[in-house]
């Protein structure tokens, strides 16, 4: 349906995202403990867990919005250390699209293009797929919740980023739009993109995810492929598998992703981070 553009800059280089030895405390609450995970390029990884498990904190660490007390996050071989430039490689879709009420979609797009020094043309295939162009001249405050979310998705995917961080991407979308977005996420994966997403709609996730990272009380209880999770828990669907992990409190870190991590060529994706 959509013609995929190559990665911007050094297109052929995918980017691995790694978090190693992450610990984070907010006041008395230990949010993340000894988290070691690896998000692979060309895969859609669902970050799952009950409320307060540390999912959002982990994703925000990758974006540089939350700083770990201990441990490191790297994109390719570039550490997330407060510098802003690495974020050129990231497309972020926040859970709640709360943009300035007085700006139109086009003005918002121009603002982000300008801030990124993006010469364009940006990827606007989602605008067409969502039939959103007519809404782009209207102030954000006049858009419906669904159209706001569509704009949110369009902006996240506009820049041909090599890492996509999608927080509840299908929330508020009608079934048609949700399907469009799921297809697009899979297309980005096929392009070699590293896709991280969270959602409480496990059915939607199951249709998109290749890998699963399951967090419980700040610790990684499972990291591996979706099929491995289903096999290990003896369930046929993700909902049953996750419920099983939560109820039993088991730790099932399968060797899949971690082994692939170790086998990854050193510096894979490094050249493309700049």
């Amino acid at each position, binding site marked *: 349906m959509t013609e995929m553009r190559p990665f911007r800059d050094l297109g052929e280089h995918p980017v691995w995202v790694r978090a190693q030895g992450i610990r984070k405390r*907010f006041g008395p609450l230990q949010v993340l403990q000894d988290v070691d995970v690896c998000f692979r390029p060309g895969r859609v990884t669902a970050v799952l867990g009950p409320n307060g498990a540390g999912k959002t904190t982990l994703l*925000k660490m990758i*974006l*540089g*919005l*939350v*700083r770990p007390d201990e441990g490191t996050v790297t994109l390719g071989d570039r550490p997330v250390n*407060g*510098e*802003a*430039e*690495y*974020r*050129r490689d*990231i497309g*972020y879709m*926040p859970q*709640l699209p*709360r*943009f*300035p009420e*007085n*700006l139109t979609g086009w*003005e918002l797009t121009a*603002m*982000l293009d*300008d*801030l*990124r020094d993006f010469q364009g043309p940006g990827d606007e295939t989602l605008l067409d797929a969502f039939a959103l162009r007519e809404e782009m001249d209207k102030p954000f405050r006049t858009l419906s919740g669904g159209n706001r979310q569509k704009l949110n998705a369009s902006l996240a995917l506009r820049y041909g980023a090599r890492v996509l*961080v999608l927080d509840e991407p299908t929330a508020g979308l009608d079934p048609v739009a949700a399907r469009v977005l799921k297809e697009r996420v899979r297309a980005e994966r096929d392009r070699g993109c590293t896709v991280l997403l969270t959602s409480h709609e496990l059915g939607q996730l199951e249709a998109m995810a290749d890998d699963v990272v399951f967090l419980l009380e700040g610790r990684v209880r499972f990291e591996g492929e979706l099929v491995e999770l289903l096999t290990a828990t003896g369930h046929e669907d993700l909902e049953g598998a996750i419920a099983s992990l939560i109820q039993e409190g088991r730790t099932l870190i399968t060797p899949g992703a971690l082994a692939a991590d170790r086998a990854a060529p050193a510096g894979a994706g490094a050249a493309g981070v700049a």
Partner: protein
Amino acid sequence: MRATLKVLHYEVRNVLRGKVLLGYGVFFVAATLGLVRLGGSVERALPSLANIVLLAVPLVSLLVSTVFLYDRRAFTELLLSHPVGRKDLFRGLYLGLTLPLAGMFLLGVGLPMALLGGVQQAPASVALLLTSGVLLTAVFTALGSVVAFSVGDSARGLATALVIWLAVTLVYDGVVLLASHTLAAYPLERPMLAAMVLNPVDLARVMVLMALDASALLGYTGAVFQDFFGGRWGVAGAAFSLAVWVALPYGLALRRFHRMDF
């Protein structure tokens, strides 16, 4: 710096479209025109107008900056997911609030003053009133930023902003008066001077009222300040102290923003 200017450009555009800022400007136009008409001349109207400015500018600057920054928290997160440095973004946000607020104040007071001949009749007083209003805007927008980046909950943040406003506009002088009354037997000039420097609203009041030759309207601390410095040195000292009052909360807000977890 380039990123700061870009953020500033879009922030100013967004803020100027809001109705709050327009209402702020209209309020000052109405207050200035009304007081001049009631007083019969610009010079008579200036002390009353100064009192309004000393109350309204800190209140509006604190509340607008605090509300705006809480409201923009999610969008700020989104901007920080793009290749924009935190310092650049903070500078853009701060100036994007301060410049429109200060500009609207200048228009709201300055334009009627120019039309009514206030600039010709009392140029120094009008200039000092406008300068002190702009500096107070910068001080209290910075203080609002400190609150918004330090207090996680927006309701508590707004309450904190209101407490700050009450403290600097009303409570502070009351405490100073009580202390001076209680310790009347002791030489209090220097402690009173220190007390003046510790309150930006008192500093602005000194700047304006010294130029108006209306020492009766000065609070106790202001009277001591005028006696200590007198004339130009007093104004210069107050202006320098106000500039420090801009720099300190600005630096604190920047530090908080640079280190905060979203």
